[in-house]
């Protein structure tokens, strides 16, 4: 005895949706009924042109761009959606002045004090250098209590080990460790994150040389650089990260 006591608002749902759960013919990929209404696509924002063959495109990128020699754009997961913007730049503001004149010019000094980010092509890396051996000592005193011996993890994130860098246990193994070797796509991100947020008890306290050294040690633990490597602004962005080409921009059809 069901009480179906409500009025149904006008649906804009395609007709194949109704009835039993198992009868729904939705797209397993997007969880939307097929033939949705309007699409936009995050790949638009990624400035991509290569369509339909992401793996082939990845191969082409590898051929065209040697590591560190410019940063290839991120692949899109799926380029089959029609393209429509999430938002478009407004160019008409009724009754608004050309400028409100609120706020003041930020000085170069003010910007530099906060602008520490390092991007994937290595922009923003400071001068300095670091070694694996130096990083090993720093790791022991500053990092190991959280990240374990040799970066094995516990009580917090594992940074190394847990299978070789080519392994991909994630779909089948719940909570498989996402290490620098098997998951992180850019070595520059390590520097950026350690520099701004670590060590946990005293974030932002390390010198550039110290950050280079800890980064070097972690890359070494993941067998991504030889032990004798001296890490600098010149070579950090060139390090080959095994998971790099796995990353794709969300390509599920975004619908407004």
């Amino acid at each position, binding site marked *: 005895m069901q009480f179906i006591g*409500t009025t149904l608002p006008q649906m804009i749902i395609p007709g194949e949706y109704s009835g039993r*759960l198992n009868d729904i013919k939705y797209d397993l990929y997007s969880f939307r009924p097929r033939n949705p209404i309007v699409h936009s696509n995050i790949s638009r924002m990624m400035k991509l042109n290569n369509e339909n063959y992401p793996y082939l495109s990845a191969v082409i990128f590898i051929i065209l761009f040697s590591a560190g020699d410019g940063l290839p754009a991120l692949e899109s997961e799926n380029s089959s959606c029609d393209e429509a913007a999430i938002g478009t730049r407004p160019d008409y503001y009724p009754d608004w002045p050309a400028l409100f004149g609120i706020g003041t010019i*930020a000085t170069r000094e003010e910007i530099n004090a906060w*602008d520490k980010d390092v991007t994937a092509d290595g922009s923003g890396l400071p001068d300095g250098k670091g070694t694996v051996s130096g990083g090993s000592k720093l790791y022991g005193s500053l990092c190991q209590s959280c990240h374990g011996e040799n970066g094995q993890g516990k009580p917090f994130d594992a940074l190394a080990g847990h299978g070789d860098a080519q392994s991909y246990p994630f779909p089948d193994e719940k909570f498989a460790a996402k290490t620098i070797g098997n998951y*992180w796509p850019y070595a520059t991100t390590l520097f950026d*994150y350690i520099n701004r947020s670590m060590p946990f008890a005293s974030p932002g306290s390390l010198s550039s040389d110290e950050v280079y050294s800890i980064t070097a040690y972690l890359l070494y633990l993941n067998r991504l650089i030889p032990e004798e490597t001296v890490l600098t602004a010149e070579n950090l962005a060139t390090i080959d990260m095994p998971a790099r080409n796995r990353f794709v921009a969300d390509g599920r059809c975004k*619908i407004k």
Partner: protein
Amino acid sequence: MSNSKNPESLTDRSDAMISRRRFLSGTATGAAGVAVLHKTVADITIDPTKQQGAPPAALGERSPFEKPARKVISNILSTTPLQDLHGTITPADLHFERHHGGIPLIDPDKYKLIIHGMVERPLKFSLDELKRFPAITRSCFIECSGNTGEYFRADRKNTPQTLRGLTSQSEWTGVKLSTLFREAGISSRASWFLAEGNDAAVMTRSIPVEKAWDDALVAYAQNGEPLRPAQGYPVRLLLPGWEGNTSIKWLRRLELGEQPFMTREETSKYSEPLPDGRIRQFSFEMEANSVITSPAYPEKIEPGWLEVRGLAWSGSGKIVKVEVSTDAGQNWSVAELQEPVLAKSHTRFRYLWNWQGKPAVIMSRAVDQTGYIQPTHEALRDERGLGAPYHLNSIVGWEVRADGLVYFDVKSWA
């Protein structure tokens, strides 16, 4: 409804309803706080028409009988007690918390926001200056993309709070990000910006500029008052419908660029390894989702008419339909949606049910304006595998036993 409480829940000391029971039986440790209202537990035996009540006070307080509480999961996480709330707004002190370096204390007089990078005029704004710009107010939810994620445990004693408590809704006020970008004169070539927080994590995310042209807000007020510290006081970014971590709290810097910055949060953390070997990145939108908040564990229901109640929401726009099943997903009936239904907002749904006292599994599924249908756990697992503790929005079932006890339907998530 004449629902009583499931006796097994007495072992769950964090359950707010049980606090109430203990309070009524005179064993609540919180009783001392009642004195503020010039009433004691003993006073409730006195006829309120026979004595003067409490005087006014500078700050209001909840009834001493009501003790809704966040559930603190860890040093970085607390959840909203969805089962204790009505309507769609989350009281600010019950908004879920997720932070990456603790909650900073920021002096509003020293606050500044800097916009720089690919702009004609690098600008800094004080809090007062931000408030001088044209303001807008809107409601929307914020949901952690880890809702029902790695903190989920397959336990029949899950509550709406433990299953879906990482979503909360507020009415936010601030200046549109597009207004600030216009003031700074951002380059037509700028396609991404970095948003940076002023906390110990110096939390950063890369955001497509198009989100600013759509509906991004630089918010300084929540439910009519300044932001709570845990929600980013004095200023946060607010990206309606997008995974919560992108709405950077304690916002201090926006840098315009041509590429995503590839921060730790958007590479090693908030990404989803897929079964085909690829890893999905920048999965910003939160998918349509819903949960029945009553009846749910630890309630006990009686045979007869009752109203099944819950919340539905979608980061893609409005909820257009919620369906309720009382037979484990075999048949579905349309629930009533409480108007007004707002885009990217919690939507209250209700469904009248005449429970006959037989075992049942009740569940809800949401459909949003894009046609997206909330999937089953099985369908979601097939698409994603086990590797991503994010964007897990599958249908939640509650098992109603013949004796009226209600439990989370663990087997539907096996």
